[in-house]
């Protein structure tokens, strides 16, 4: 990542994409007389878009020389961005879709049609738990009838038989076929057995337990025996990211100071960078230290699942949904919102009524702070491995 790249294009394209999330809805609302506030928002946004359109000329002229490849690229980008702005302003949603796709394509981001292969609620619950941890119990309605019976009798001390943890074979629990796809749950196999034994679950009943029952048992046992907290995939990813890319993130914060401060202001956040000259640097240092120590997602960012969780049905490995290669740290607004622009819910509806279409991000992309390549970070394990080997050989030679 370059340290001194001016964030010109970035600011414009980012803003424009933020507006496209709101504008089609806002313009649609204009035709409905009663929508007072939406209507006024639409006029404000329209003015902003016109300003953006005018600023494109300056942007274009100052950034490249004629007849170069860069010039052609900028020209093309300008044309499609202008088209997009005009289409947004006139509310032509089908054209807006095409323009967005063109822009994404130019930025090496591909939209792909996916055949929907929805996972079950239990599978998704385990992906969620692996990603977020064990903060809450599942709701009672989700427990199996057998387990609900155990809960009732537990308080009356009616489960008096006692089994050794060794008597349980987790493979006999149908839901274990999901659990064993996650290293974090496999590591806890023994704790699952201890929890089953402590709860006096009959050996013949374990085949009727579901995923929610097992997670409830695990959480209950962990609290009762004060086990160390479950380090979830989200935390692991953040720690992994900051371990390998701290300097690149610091450079990003330095170059994009204005973007970050503007993002704060847009959110109406109660934090004044102007009053204290060290406030921004303090914010950066605190964000990085929280990432290192606790694996917290830094403020204004979020984690994006590149391959969507709802479509990640795999016979072999559900945990791939939360693997570092499927995760990307991304500015929440506008980029994460943009990534989900074409999401469909159960009704198959999106704001553009488009079905199952996703943005394809490269597997090695680990950080997305903007379309400009200078604002992206790639994690290349092969190169890292090669460097490690080379260092090792060099050290060995020096020793000899």
């Amino acid at each position, binding site marked *: 990542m370059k340290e001194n790249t001016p964030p010109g294009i970035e600011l414009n394209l980012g803003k424009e994409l933020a507006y496209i999330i709101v504008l089609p809805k806002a313009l649609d609302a204009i035709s409905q007389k009663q929508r007072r506030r939406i209507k006024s928002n639409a006029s404000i946004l329209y003015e902003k878009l016109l300003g953006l359109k005018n600023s494109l000329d300056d942007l274009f002229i100052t950034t490249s020389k004629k007849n170069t490849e860069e010039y052609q690229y900028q020209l093309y980008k300008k044309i499609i961005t202008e088209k997009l702005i005009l289409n947004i302003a006139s509310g032509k949603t089908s054209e807006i879709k095409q323009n967005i796709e063109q822009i994404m394509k130019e930025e090496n981001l591909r939209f792909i049609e996916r055949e929907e292969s929805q996972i079950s609620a239990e599978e998704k*619950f385990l992906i969620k738990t692996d990603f977020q941890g064990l*903060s*809450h119990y599942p*709701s009672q309605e*989700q427990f199996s009838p057998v387990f609900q019976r155990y809960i009732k009798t537990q308080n009356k001390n009616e489960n008096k038989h006692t089994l050794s943890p060794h008597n349980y074979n987790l493979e006999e629990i149908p839901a274990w076929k999901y659990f064993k796809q996650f290293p974090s749950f496999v590591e806890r196999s023994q704790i699952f057995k201890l929890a089953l034994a402590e709860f006096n679950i009959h050996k013949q009943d374990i085949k009727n337990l579901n995923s929610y029952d097992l997670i409830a048992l695990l959480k209950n046992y962990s609290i009762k025996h004060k086990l160390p907290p479950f380090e979830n995939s989200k935390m692991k990813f953040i720690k992994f990211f900051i371990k390998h890319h701290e300097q690149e993130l610091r450079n990003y914060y330095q170059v994009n100071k204005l973007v970050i401060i503007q993002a704060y202001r847009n959110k*109406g956040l109660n934090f004044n960078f102007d009053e204290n000259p060290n406030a921004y640097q303090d914010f950066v240092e605190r964000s990085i230290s929280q990432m290192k120590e606790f694996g917290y997602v830094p403020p204004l960012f979020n984690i994006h699942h590149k391959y969507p969780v709802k479509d990640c049905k795999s016979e072999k490995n559900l945990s791939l949904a939360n693997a570092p290669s499927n995760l990307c740290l991304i500015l929440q607004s506008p980029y994460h919102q943009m990534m989900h622009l074409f999401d469909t819910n159960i009704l198959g509806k999106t*704001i553009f009524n488009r079905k199952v279409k996703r943005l394809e991000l490269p597997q090695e992309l680990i950080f997305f702070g903007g379309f400009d390549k200078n604002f992206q970070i790639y994690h290349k394990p092969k190169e890292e491995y090669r460097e490690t080997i080379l260092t090792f050989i060099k050290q060995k030679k020096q020793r000899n």
Partner: protein
Amino acid sequence: MQELIQTLKNLPLMLTAKPATAEQIIRTQQDLKINNIAPIPHDFTELLHQFNTAEFDGCYLFGINPRSYHLDIFAENEMLNLPDKENVLILGYDEFDYLAYNHSKQCYQIIDKDSLEVVQRCSDLINAIKYLFKIENDEQYL
């Protein structure tokens, strides 16, 4: 509630806006009504007077944001345009779920973003917010 607000404020790098004014809340309630979106429940308006919008560790709580549509209850619900919006108001989200208030059931709910199924019913606002921000429930349940 005060205890919860203090817990939220103590979360590291919790981002929050200035408390909402009575005027802003009334205006938002009017906008919601005009646009056939469910109103903000009473206990949530109480919260807004002290704690307005929150963002922590990839989890977001809506409030009133006059500057932009980010985390603004009205704008976010208008954009989401989910079915049953006359009855169910979305008040926040994380990577997988929405936090919502269901007026006909008179309770806070956690709703799966894709399937729109209710995955959890919360007894009150405090528990709903704890659920959203993954504030550990350390009580033994079983």
